[in-house]
């Protein structure tokens, strides 16, 4: 598996927005990730769901970017929810304690179900 360019697309879903992430989350993903999140926030979405189903690789810089998003969300009392993380990256979110602050769900349906 070679480097995959990062992508972030917004999908409105009622009061919430799903950001479909794809590719590698590393330093190169910073601009696109922050822009997508800014769009979701501007739309007043709550919660914001991060879909990691098509993400193959997250390095420590990627973790830092996600911490940055989470900090913004908490400042505005906005919920951030994740789904589609592989077992490996679920483990990484646990040991970094990101999972203490972001709900982690197996798939889109269960993530949306939590919302309801």
């Amino acid at each position, binding site marked *: *598996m*070679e*480097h995959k360019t990062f992508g972030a697309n917004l999908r409105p879903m009622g009061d919430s927005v799903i950001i479909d992430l794809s590719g*590698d989350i*590393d*330093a*190169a993903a910073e601009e696109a990730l922050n822009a997508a999140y800014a769009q979701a926030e501007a739309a007043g979405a709550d919660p914001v769901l991060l879909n990691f189903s098509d993400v193959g*690789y997250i*390095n*420590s*810089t990627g*973790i*830092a*970017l996600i*911490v*940055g998003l*989470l*900090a913004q969300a*908490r*400042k505005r009392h906005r919920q951030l929810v994740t789904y589609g993380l*592989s*077992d*490996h990256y679920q*483990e*990484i979110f646990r*040991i*970094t*304690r*990101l999972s*203490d*602050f972001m709900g982690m769900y197996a798939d889109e349906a269960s993530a949306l179900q939590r919302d309801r």
Partner: protein
Amino acid sequence: MIAQITALWQRFTTNNSEQAGEPVVATSDSTPPAAVLPPVDIAPNDPLLAYLLHVNGPVEVERLKLDSPALESLKAAGTRLLVPLVSQGELIGVLNLGSRRSDQEYSSDDRKLLADLATQAAPAVRVAQLVRQQKLEAAERERVAQELKVARLIQQTLLPQSLPEIDGWQVAAYYQPARAVGGDFYDFRTLPDGRLAIIIGDVTDKGVPAALVMATTRTLLRAASERLVSPGAVLERVNDLLHPDIPARMFVTCLYAVLDPATGHLVYANAGHDLPYTTGPSGVIELEARGMPLGLMPGMHYEEKEVTLAPGDTVLFYSDGLVEAHDPEREMYGFPKLREELAGFEGDDLVTYLLDTLHAFTGPGWEQEDDVTLVTVRYDGPSSVQREDPVQKGEVALLANFEVPSAPGNERRAMNQIAEAVASLDLPPDCLEKLKTAVAEATMNAMEHGNQYREDLPVHIRAEVEGTRLRVSITDHGGGAQIPEATTPDIDLKLAGLESPRGWGLFLIKSMVDEMNVHTDDEHHTVELVVNLDKT
């Protein structure tokens, strides 16, 4: 008598060189001196010299009938009288006299006085000549001694001060220069990946020029070995750098080998040096590889050869001084004898053994003709520490050994190569993913913090299995300062904006593997990741 001595011509008979003395003007009263005449050179084969050696007393120039260019010059210069200076049967000088101031002919009393003067002066002139020559010779001896001193100082500074110490291996070296300092050199270099570079070479010349070329070559070899893994590539680089600057007719023979102490694998390339040998349970093996000496021609290719050493094997690297030594009957030690002696070798000290055979061959009172250099590397077997630890018993298997340039994104390449390399271990999926993350993070740290993302500074990555432990080493060029301790980042502070969101790398590495060890020296950091396979 008032006379004008126009020139004192002297001859240095020992080196057959001519020396015109300073014109000497002797005057008295207040009579203004006549113009000083230039000295006249006399060719060694001029017939005037033979005549003057045998004549007794002063000679009137006008009366001589010799076919002599010097005589013609003397007449033209206004010389009237020649007085030879003879000492111990050698003509060592001539007094040339012009006209008397009274314009009268020289009287018989004048001639007698001059003859007496010559008799007295000749020995004194001879002594002066000898003293001057001795001073010149002493100055030359001093210059040679000084050059020898400088050359020896350069060489002593550059030869290794200590030998590498590696578990399971014995390294020995012997160097004895000939009377004049020669051009032999040897060096050891521990490479970033833990392998050992062994270098032996010889510069064709003596003294300071050879010592300076040796110093240059050694520096170039060290610099090239920092960046290039392959011995052939190192020699190619050094050859091309050396060629434009090395003095004409000088070149360097050099053998460059890289030993992996973990496996016994030895890869080598040769630039015209004597071929090494291994001797051990499998017999004597010549390690052949061909290539032109360094500095002779640009753009050369150096073939690489490989051999794997087994416990009990010893490799011998050496220079001409051993095989070209002669015995009292002028027979040469030679390569066939060397192979015979190697075949007869038992025990563990090949250097002492070979020196004994050499001295037995040359006999006492041998005047050493060339530098003798011997370097031996002996494989005792896997280290005793390892043998004492049951968990770590077994062979060491090298799975991967490669470099990646320090560029963003290349940690992906490193991660993927390691994943391929360890595929044969059938790691559980979660264990493999953790290893990949650890390798990626360690490689990123090495590229960013160790090498400052300079593409010309590679990160070296190596994976091996030793018993039940998988070990991956990641090495950069950021020696000196220690790598900071891995601490647990505080996400609360980061989320509150009181800390940078960054700083997860070391923590992730440590969390993903069973052991993380860090080694730092002046030039490198190495992060060693260990996964225990027996729990997987």
